[in-house]
């Protein structure tokens, strides 16, 4: 790795002072698993690394009657093993457990997982693409390798968001607590993520100097009916080709409340509001799922090698609503 100065602040305010001081030359490190790839490949060359692992106030899970607050520096393993998260917000535990490998979950943090950068290999290999500030997309060409890329809301850049916990947090209606130079800011999980239409160089709203300090999950969806599924090439380590997360409350024969999100389809995890609206009040059956799936992929555009993602997303949404048993593939 190229040389840099390493800072290990012990409080959020100290970290902010450092970010203030170094601005664009600073690089924030949480677990480091995304960061070190950039540094080892010498594509990013920050002058100062601000390592957040020494900040105790950003670690751990706090529970209250209003829900849980997870420090951004809490590791995925800690999230997965936390008894309250498992019992009431199992959707998140399930999603976090499917991320990467055991060692990465031991080190990678929930804040890092939702803030990681795109995995498009043209971008990661340092090609001067749109996302890197250039003027071309190498993936969206007739011969570009784009099997893993976007089917929805692509604009110039076709990279997707790689996070597994992000759709689960959106389905759980989580709030993200940010610390900006202007003070604390609390936003909906959904609004943390941005597409190329807002800023093509970032997947989230953090600007230099901003920090994601914690994630709050309200008790609104505690113990609801959850569904999470991640589809990937290998059973371990791989990023999702697509994943789906849903939280449903079914009373009697009808879906009373529902939140549903997919990731791997666009540059940001997508909350499927139209699907939610259409499914509400209907029975949680494969017929409703079928309808929801078709609705979910409306407007989807396949690239050269990722057409499979459209039926895949349709079926994942169908399963998320109608369950797996009834949702067997019929050709």
């Amino acid at each position, binding site marked *: *790795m*190229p*040389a*840099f*100065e*390493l*800072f*290990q602040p012990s409080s959020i305010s100290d970290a902010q002072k*450092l970010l203030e001081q170094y601005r664009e030359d600073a690089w924030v490190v949480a677990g*480091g*698993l995304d960061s*070190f*790839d950039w*540094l*080892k490949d010498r594509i990013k060359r920050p002058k100062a*690394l601000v*390592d957040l*692992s020494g900040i105790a106030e950003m670690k751990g899970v706090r529970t209250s009657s209003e829900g849980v607050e997870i420090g951004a520096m809490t590791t995925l*393993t800690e999230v997965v093993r936390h008894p309250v998260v498992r019992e009431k917000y199992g959707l998140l535990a399930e999603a976090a457990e499917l991320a*990467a*490998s*055991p*060692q*990465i979950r*031991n*080190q990678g943090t929930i804040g890092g997982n939702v803030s990681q950068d795109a995995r498009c290999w043209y971008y990661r290999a340092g090609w001067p693409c749109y996302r890197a500030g250039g003027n071309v997309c190498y993936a969206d060409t007739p011969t570009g390798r784009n099997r893993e890329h976007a089917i929805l809301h692509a604009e110039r850049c076709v990279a997707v968001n790689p996070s597994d916990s992000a759709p689960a947090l959106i389905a759980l209606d989580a709030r993200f607590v940010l610390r900006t130079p202007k003070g604390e800011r609390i936003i909906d999980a959904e609004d943390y993520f941005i597409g190329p239409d807002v800023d093509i160089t970032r997947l989230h709203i953090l600007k230099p100097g901003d920090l994601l300090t914690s994630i709050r999950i309200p008790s609104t969806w505690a113990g609801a009916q959850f569904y999470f599924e991640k589809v990937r090439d290998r*059973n*371990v*380590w791989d990023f999702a080709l697509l994943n789906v997360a849903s939280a449903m409350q079914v009373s009697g024969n009808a879906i009373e409340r529902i939140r549903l999100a997919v990731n791997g389809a666009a540059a940001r995890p997508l909350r499927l509001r139209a699907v939610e609206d259409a499914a509400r009040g209907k029975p949680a059956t494969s017929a409703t799922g079928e309808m929801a799936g078709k609705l979910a992929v409306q407007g989807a555009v396949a690239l050269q090698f990722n057409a499979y993602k459209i039926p895949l997303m349709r079926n994942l949404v169908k399963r998320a609503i109608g369950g797996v048993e009834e949702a067997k593939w019929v050709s």
Partner: protein
Amino acid sequence: MPNPTLKILGDTPKAVSRRRFIKGVIAGGAAVSSASYLFRNSVVHGVSGTGDRLITLNVNGQLRRVDVMKQETLAWTLRYKLGLTGTKLGCDRAECGACTVLLDDVPHYSCSVLTHTVRNEKVLSIEGLANEDGTLHPIQQGIIDEQGFQCAFCMSGFVMATEGFLKTIPDPTRSELAHGISGNLCRCQDYDKILTALMRGAENMRTANHV
């Protein structure tokens, strides 16, 4: 009458085993680093950074003074500064698991940990598993019992991942253990035998702990 010279030669593998040789190298390194400790006043302190490059690490139960660059990974420090070459560098990208060590009993890819960030943690590498007298750790013994690896480049990583996993689930099923060590790759594709060997290791550990 036995030739005394031959007798000495015959004892050599025990007297100067590879392990002891490495230990000797490490002791030499410790002497060098303690020498630099004496002259640490000459080190220029960073104004607000992490300060000294000369830090103390707790490695395999020993406190080791070592000169570490800010951008240095733990795998690099272990192998090239402390002489603990049992930790292997495969991909250097947190993808293969060959560099797995335990930090406070939890498996980590040491290729993706900055050494400066583990100053307050206990590092355990493969060299710290066996007893001082050379008795192998139960997992290591399990591998010998079952001949679980082919080229074994990935072995130390697998052993450390298993050691860490068994601390949370000491009596795993085969599929639980497979899931627990799923962050390690074997290019020989010897997974089935590796799993058999590590299951034997887990069994050995339970036997050892019950005694």
